[in-house]
């Protein structure tokens, strides 16, 4: 009896250790993806880190059902995006874009100001996009995802992703032309 329970306990420990190892691997490879998705919505490093951390905790709790790599990343993208949107809507204290991410301090003052202005214009244009177009254009420009990669992450047909990308670029161009 003791031998059996020992073996059973040993198998549980082994399963848990395997899960821990797999999750660590997913965490390392997907941490930047989650952070950048959150950042694309919140544009604040600390807030984005908090949201990404929350998403990883939720992923950890449900990890036994998310062991497949693609499934994990798709789930993480959707969860991070949703959490970031919720946070943006709920956080009324931060309504101005003054807390916008500052570029690296290697630029001199003039260049930094120009870059800031360009980035601000771009973000305003991205923010004006409908949510489904915004997520597609953001994902397509994170980690160099191609159409198939974005389609896998969003569980959408590649044709849908392609058309949304086209629409998003068109609208961004129009808006950037208008505000130039």
């Amino acid at each position: 009896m003791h031998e059996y329970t020992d073996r059973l306990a040993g198998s549980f420990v082994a399963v848990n250790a395997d899960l821990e190892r797999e999750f660590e691997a997913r965490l390392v490879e997907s941490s930047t993806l989650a952070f950048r998705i959150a950042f694309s919505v919140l544009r604040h490093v600390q807030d984005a880190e908090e949201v990404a951390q929350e998403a990883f905790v939720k992923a950890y709790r449900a990890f036994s059902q998310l062991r497949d790599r693609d499934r994990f990343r798709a789930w993480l993208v959707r969860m991070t995006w949703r959490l970031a949107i919720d946070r943006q809507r709920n956080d009324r204290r931060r309504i101005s874009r003054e807390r916008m991410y500052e570029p690296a301090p290697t630029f001199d003052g003039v260049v930094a100001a120009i870059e800031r202005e360009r980035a601000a214009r771009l973000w305003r244009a991205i923010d004006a996009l409908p949510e489904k177009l915004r997520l597609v254009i953001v994902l397509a420009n994170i980690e160099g995802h191609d159409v198939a990669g974005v389609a896998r992450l969003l569980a959408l047909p590649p044709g849908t992703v392609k058309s949304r990308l086209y629409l998003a670029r068109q609208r961004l161009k129009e808006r950037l032309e208008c505000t130039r």
Partner: protein
Amino acid sequence: MHPMNDSLDDEITRALAVEPSPEFLARVRTRIAAEPAPRAYRPWWLLGSAAAACAVVVVAVALWPRALRPGQIVSRTALSATSTSGIGTLVSTQQPVLPAREARRRERDRRSPEPEVLIAAGEVRAMRALILAARDGRLELAPSLENTAVEAASSPPIETIDIQPITIAPIAPFSGEEGVRQ
């Protein structure tokens, strides 16, 4: 891809090329360390369904009316062997145990209003007065009973009844003539 798209995508990529702080991963690991370890996936919905089905069966069995099945022992009597005078005899030591359904039926029958035997109130009073008087010695019933002793009913002898055989005369043969009244 269109050159404009290239420049636009480059711009977006640059805008998104933000790295998390070096402590980010460490913070996530610390936060996750406080969580209970993930367990291997188990089909909890399956276990839940099985448990619910078992509960339904148990409740159904508990609530099912216990009909008296054929062959069921109605009166369970514990028998014990006592050896008196060297011969083993079986003696009942308990009252018969009725099944619950039978006991409920009897209780219901006992409570249910049955038609009472109606006796006139005057007769009741008279009977009571008679019984009381006889008990107190105010009334001697013996002589009265002797005088009115009911004699054994002597039925008259049964006479033999002779039943004469019935003779039926044959019907007169048909004359064969039509139109003749008989």
